[in-house]
């Protein structure tokens, strides 16, 4: 067995990027993700990597765009305000069909907010974030091991589908330490990068990477093509974890840190004899809609838990079978507002007590 390494979630991301063959990183420091640039700044020189602390987040996302256009594996990372600044560049990358990994270790907002964990950037991540109606791949790790594994997956998916991929975690998962097994990069069949721009050889066709599409019908065709790709992602790449759902009368759903906390509450509820399970989306885009649809054929009540006033709940509502009752328990981000397993256990008890069949909107 490979030796376990006790590392922060952020460090696991950096380790995985190196293992995945990433040798180009561009970023600008911000809590709670600065361990990522710190690690790579230390490790890249000996590996022949290129670490650049850019003058801003806007510069760093555009450096990512440039590096990806040259065909290398590249990454940037940030949080809250920094991710907001990167949105223009992400939109250009989506428009140019460029891969690239963006790590978002969420903190409180809006504005400068604070440094505690948050899930209130779910919409920003899963709806594209910038202009133009695109989507990006969004992966939501719930442990330090998953920070490692999903970062490697993000590079592969990003290359396969030629679109940016985001590792979407928060201050809890980024800063906590756990022992991980740093597995070698898994084998993947990746398409040839026959579109990269590295200088034209005489006699070869000119390649252009751009998001400007002015031809008659050109942009419309592009949108439909991307639409198809998003469908393909949904079919092939939806990932989720189910825990004790087979006979559950209530299923708790949450992602990332909230799921981690909720799982302990679900285990306590099981010990107390309650028929409760957990459904944890691992991919937020594509959202694992099929899992919710299948599950709500046998379980009629969902309790959604988020570190926000409720965002993923919209996707849950769109995915469940008609007549499913959806309860919501949210703790918007901030110092002292992280929910505890004990607290969620109480919510589970309440949810099991009352099956109202009221519209979930009445809960707000």
């Amino acid at each position, binding site marked *: 067995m490979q030796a*376990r390494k006790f590392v922060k979630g952020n460090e696991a991301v950096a380790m995985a990027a190196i293992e995945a063959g990433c040798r180009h990183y561009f970023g600008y420091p911000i809590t709670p993700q600065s361990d990522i640039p710190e690690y790579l700044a230390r490790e890249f020189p000996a590996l022949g990597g290129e670490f650049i602390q850019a003058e801003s987040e806007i510069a760093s996302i555009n450096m990512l765009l440039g590096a990806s256009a040259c065909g290398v594996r590249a990454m940037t990372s940030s949080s809250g305000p920094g991710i907001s600044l990167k949105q223009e560049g992400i939109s250009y990358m989506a428009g140019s069909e460029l891969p690239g990994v963006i790590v978002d270790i969420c903190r409180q907002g809006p504005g400068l907010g604070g440094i*505690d964990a948050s899930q209130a950037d779910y919409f920003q991540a899963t709806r594209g974030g910038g202009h133009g109606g695109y989507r990006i791949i969004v992966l939501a790790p719930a442990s330090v091991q998953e920070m490692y594994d999903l970062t490697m997956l993000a590079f592969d998916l990003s290359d396969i589908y030629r679109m940016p991929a985001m590792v979407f975690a928060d201050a*809890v998962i980024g800063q*906590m330490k756990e022992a991980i097994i740093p597995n070698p990069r898994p084998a993947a069949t990746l398409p040839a990068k026959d579109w990269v721009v590295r200088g034209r050889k005489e006699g070869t066709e000119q390649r252009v990477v751009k998001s400007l599409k002015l031809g008659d019908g050109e942009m419309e065709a592009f949108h439909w093509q991307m639409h198809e790709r998003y469908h393909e992602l949904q079919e092939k790449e939806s990932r989720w974890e189910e825990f004790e759902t087979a006979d559950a009368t209530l299923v708790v759903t949450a992602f990332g*840190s909230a799921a981690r*906390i909720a799982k*302990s509450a679900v285990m306590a509820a099981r010990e107390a004899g309650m028929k409760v399970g957990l459904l944890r989306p691992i991919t937020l885009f594509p959202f694992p809609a099929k899992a919710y649809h299948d599950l709500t054929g046998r379980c009629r009540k969902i309790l959604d838990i988020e570190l926000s006033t409720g965002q993923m709940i919209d996707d849950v509502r769109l995915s469940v079978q008609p007549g499913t009752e959806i309860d919501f328990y949210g703790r918007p981000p901030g110092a002292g507002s*992280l929910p*505890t397993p*004990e607290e969620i256990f109480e919510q589970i008890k309440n949810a099991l007590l009352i099956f109202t069949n009221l519209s979930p909107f009445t809960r707000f």
Partner: protein
Amino acid sequence: MRHDLFISGFGGQGVLLAGNLLSYAAIREGKNVSFFPAYGVEKRGGAAMCTVIIADGEVGSPVVGNPSVSVLLNQLSFDKYYPKVASGGICIVNTSLVDTAGHVRSDVELIAIPMNEIANSLGDPRMVNMVAVGAYAAKSGAVSIKAVEDALSDALPERNHRFIPANVKAIAAGADRTV
């Protein structure tokens, strides 16, 4: 077995190092661990906390509402977190900086240790956290003192390995206070 521990103090008291050290010790013993830090934006003087879960099986939530053991190193932490210790739990308090009068809970075992005085008597006030670690390890049995001593070389950067013998003494001094 599953041990959950909450440590709180102010920035600079070594709260995070204490949690890290216990985590490394547990890993040396082949256990599963989560170490979850939380701290203010200040480098020193702000609040510093961490939660350590040590388990044979799945760690589960890295966050605990009512910890079974709390180590509280300053008054602010005591006032805020003593009421949250689980019923039947243990609270290890640094009475050099904490006045526990008027806050007695009959359902929590309170272990009062003047950690600053002990650390000072060993020659360095910065070893308060090691006294606390020794007391916790000895009292809870979550990790052995031997594993904690061995883990010092994992938790401390190379340049500070020369301080290991002094830290070993502080850990022993803390452990002695719980028997």
